[in-house]
């Protein structure tokens, strides 16, 4: 059997942390794009489309990410769609983050006064232009802080990708625990690494929040 030094543990975890970062990036970019599309749909005056998006949000916020990952990985294969772990993780994490991001951004859009919409309308801008030039730029300013804050949730969410075979930070931790029989040390290291990734993001989000409040 092999012996792990503390450095072996840490360096392996660091290597695995790369995947945590890559997964987070995928989730965030995918979730952002889909979330934006859903946001547009949700802002249109069409009732049934709005409700469809609300249902989507309800569905993916109302079920565990763990289950979503599992169903994306094995369930899609059941339906005959060949999925790699990467595809499944990307799909599940995208669905999950897009639901949350749409919700966050929708709140920001709603906080823009009705007067702004009406002013844009009465200047003959069409719906797309109203969103693009008047509403979204203003909503974006409020949205930056909570969006960055949500990034922390995404990073932590990737821990669950271990159930579909991803050797990211958490899974690496479990595997090393099994080889070393030192759970306390290993999970402490895992926790510290997550903290090192997430805390700066949290701080940044908070400082953005502060800046925004000063501006107003």
């Amino acid at each position: 059997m092999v012996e792990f030094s503390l450095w072996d543990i840490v360096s392996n975890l660091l290597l695995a942390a790369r995947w945590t970062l890559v997964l987070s990036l995928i989730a965030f970019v995918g979730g952002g794009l889909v979330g934006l599309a859903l946001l547009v749909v949700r802002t249109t005056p069409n009732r049934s489309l709005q409700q469809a998006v609300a249902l989507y949000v309800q569905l993916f916020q109302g079920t565990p990410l763990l289950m979503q990952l599992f169903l994306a990985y094995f369930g899609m294969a059941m339906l005959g769609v060949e999925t790699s772990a990467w595809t499944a993780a990307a799909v599940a994490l995208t669905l999950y983050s897009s639901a949350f991001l749409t919700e966050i951004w929708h709140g920001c859009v709603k906080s823009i006064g009705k007067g702004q919409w009406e002013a844009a309308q009465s200047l003959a801008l069409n719906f797309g232009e109203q969103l693009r030039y008047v509403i979204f730029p203003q909503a974006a300013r409020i949205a930056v802080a909570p969006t960055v804050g949500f990034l922390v949730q995404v990073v932590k969410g990737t821990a669950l990708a271990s159930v579909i075979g991803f050797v990211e930070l958490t899974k690496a931790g479990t595997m090393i625990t099994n080889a070393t029989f030192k759970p306390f040390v290993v999970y402490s290291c895992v926790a510290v690494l997550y903290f090192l990734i997430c805390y700066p993001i949290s701080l940044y989000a908070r400082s953005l929040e502060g800046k925004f409040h000063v501006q107003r």
Partner: protein
Amino acid sequence: ETALDNIQKAKLIKIAIPTDFPPYGFVGIDLKPQGLDIDMANYIATKMGVKVELMPVTSANRIAYLQTKKADLVISTLGKNPEREKVIDFTSAYSPFFQAIYGAKTLSVKSMNDLAGKTVAVTRGAIEDQELTKVAPAGAELKRFEDNNATVSAYVSGQTQLLATGASVAGVMMQKNPQLNAEYKLLLKDSPNFIGVGKGEDALRTKVNAIIAEAKKSGDIDKMAQKWLGRPAGQLPE
């Protein structure tokens, strides 16, 4: 199209292997899987003349990999039983394996009945879980964990009094944790390992069976057992 056709066309075979089950499958300092099952996977791929893609799985999800064709073969300390044969097919056995119950020397466990009132860590969905569920007395408390990592960790960290797992895993565990003073208590089941193939993939099964038969004859199977288990494979069922 059969799985075998696909393998030969792609020149690639996808094999599910364990990473939580020393010495059959575990990780080294480079986090690369190694062990008897990994060697077996590589051996089969070589004999078939194709490349191999190893997919780490857990006891709980390895069948799903086969069912959804994410893996062509499962070489993951897979024991055979009638329930499993309903959903997947098995080749002949390739390595010996027996599951047992382990616990501290100070704990008196002479028969299955002594399990009453004790906590046992076991991996959810593994052969030992099914076996234990059948034979354990009513008062025994089975704690079922997601994968073998968690099961062993639970026992080592003292969360349970007893551990039900493969003999080899337990051997490594006891060697690494002399302070636990653990010993072999009861045999659960002697269940050699088989290779799982998808239901109805007879071409592939025949092909793998041929490779195993060949390896038994040539002594390669015994060599692998010697390398990882410290003894020859012995008589294995077809």
